[in-house]
């Protein structure tokens, strides 16, 4: 069980308030991702939930129990750190056993749980090695193993994949998602990588400067970003945001259109522009197109291998149904 409720919590370091009053509910079994640019307070929020930082004010509940003043060890949460934080002088077995040893679990039960966790995480052959002798991915799995054996109410992940190389990251992303499906335990995952957020989350919480900008499923955020910030943050490559007369035509201060919602044609279309840089990914091609009246180049996706060259003039038509309009205050106009 692990339903986490945050009521009106704030956090200040000295005079600086990093988290203004914030409410959030994380349902039992949900995979929630906190995402935002660096310095947005997402790690602080996670550490508040973990109990590693004290809240300045507000209440927090886990399954209806007030844990605001409960020390981290007694909250029943397990955390996986960015640096993995393995104990370097202990073998993998002892690392995984450490929380059970602290809790005074008897040896037979410890062994059984270690075997089970090691089997699930492919660590059987490495149990007697030290963390220093393992690769990044293996260390990551040991850290997860150490969290699993505690059978926590919720797992907290603090940017766990940021120290891995790109290929490994994709693999671990999948493994964590599978783990979540198997354990059905609440997981809170902090990342600055919106691809990780989109691929793993049941629920994404977009944060900026300690303020929740939007909460929703990945596709909700993709389809209906609540404001300009979320619009620009979610989606890769990012949404084209256009202001000025072109936006006024649609009755908005800003309009947003994703690269994949613009049709490209060599001879006819609403906007015309010169192709700048082309990024060929094989499955898709992204063009940066300079349109005369626009302040910034448009990013446009063309499916497959398209043979426009740099300097060519092309014509583009936005899909009006998928265009996002934002008012003067930056909020979405329905």
């Amino acid at each position, binding site marked *: 069980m692990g339903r986490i409720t945050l009521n009106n919590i704030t956090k200040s370091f000295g005079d600086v308030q990093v988290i203004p009053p914030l409410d959030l509910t994380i349902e039992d079994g949900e995979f929630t991702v906190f995402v935002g640019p660096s310095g947005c307070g997402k790690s602080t929020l996670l550490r508040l939930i*973990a*109990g*590693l930082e004290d809240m300045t004010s507000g209440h927090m509940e886990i399954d209806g129990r007030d844990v605001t003043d409960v*020390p*981290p*060890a*007694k909250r029943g*949460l*397990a*955390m996986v*750190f*960015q*640096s993995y*934080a*393995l*104990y*370097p*002088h202990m073998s993998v077995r002892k690392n995984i056993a*450490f*929380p059970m040893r*602290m*809790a005074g679990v008897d040896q037979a039960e410890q062994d059984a749980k270690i075997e089970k966790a090691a089997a699930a995480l492919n660590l059987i052959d490495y149990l007697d090695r*030290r963390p220093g002798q393992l690769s990044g991915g293996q260390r990551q799995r040991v850290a997860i193993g*150490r969290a699993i054996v*505690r059978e926590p109410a919720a797992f907290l992940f603090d940017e766990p994949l940021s120290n891995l190389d790109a290929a490994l990251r994709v693999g671990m992303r999948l493994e964590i998602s599978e783990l979540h499906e198997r354990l059905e335990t609440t997981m809170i995952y902090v990342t600055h990588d919106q691809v990780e957020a989109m691929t793993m989350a049941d629920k994404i919480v977009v944060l900026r400067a300690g303020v929740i900008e939007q909460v929703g499923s990945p596709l909700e955020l993709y389809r209906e970003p609540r404001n300009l910030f979320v619009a620009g943050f979610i989606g890769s490559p990012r949404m084209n945001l256009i202001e000025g007369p072109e936006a006024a035509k649609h009755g908005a201060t800003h309009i947003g259109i994703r690269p994949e919602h613009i049709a490209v044609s060599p001879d006819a279309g609403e906007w015309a522009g010169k192709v700048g840089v082309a990024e060929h990914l094989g499955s898709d091609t992204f063009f940066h197109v300079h349109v005369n009246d626009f302040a910034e180049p448009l990013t446009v996706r063309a499916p497959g291998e398209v043979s426009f060259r740099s300097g060519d003039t092309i014509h583009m038509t936005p899909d009006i149904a998928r265009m996002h309009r934002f008012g003067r205050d930056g909020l979405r106009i329905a």
Partner: protein
Amino acid sequence: MATKASQSAARLMMAPAVVLLLGWMLVPLITTLYFSFADFRPLRGVFEPWIGFDNYERFVSSSSFWDAVTTTLVMVGAILAITVTLGVLLALLLDKPMFGQGVVRILVIAPFFVMPTVSALVWKNMMMDPVNGVLSHVWRFFGATPHDWLVETPLLSIILIVSWQWLPFATLILLTAVQSLDGEQLEAAEMDGAPPLKRFWFIILPHLARAITIVTLIQTIFLLSIFAEIFVTTQGSFGTRTLTYLVYQRVLESQNVGLGSAGGIIAVILANIVAIFLMRIVGKNLDA
């Protein structure tokens, strides 16, 4: 640039330093070795260049030799225990953020800058003096009879003085080790349910193991040759005669250079045995 020419140029330029160092170390050692096999008592005008191992036999078989060895080991062991234990605690304390951290850290290092002779004199006359010493005033303040440190507990007094001098060194090395500990490890241990004392025992202490062995090794090398503190305070009486001090007495007080040299060579051998032991331990820790 490892061409032949640059290599020989490098050798040429290093030569003075190497020759100087070799001379510095080898000449005294060889002279000592030479004298240790001679019957050399300059004030009596005796000089017999070769008397075999007589000096060694006499030095080892005298009752003061084993006493001196024991005293040396007790002294070095006690000082190590005190400096390492207090050093770890002080390092943990100094690692905490506090007001005036920089100044406090400099103050902590201060005793290390005081010359051994001076600090021993200060301790003897200003701290441990039974009439005017600061400690005796403290004793009197609590209504107790002042303790005559250097007469009643001379070995302990010297241990305290030397520990005071070496504590900064231990603290400093251990402080850098404490600072290099990854904070996330402590947080992970906290989340894993380890209370402060267990965090210290299972995480901090193992992390410090390497620094502690290094402190032990370096201090042992220097502590084996403590001299000024003994010379200034007890002159080797009341069971404070270490091996080093015994050698000094044989050479200068008994004017027997041959006997003293033999003692010196024995001390070198003993020190090397201790060093090899310590190196083994350090080596084990460095592997980990």
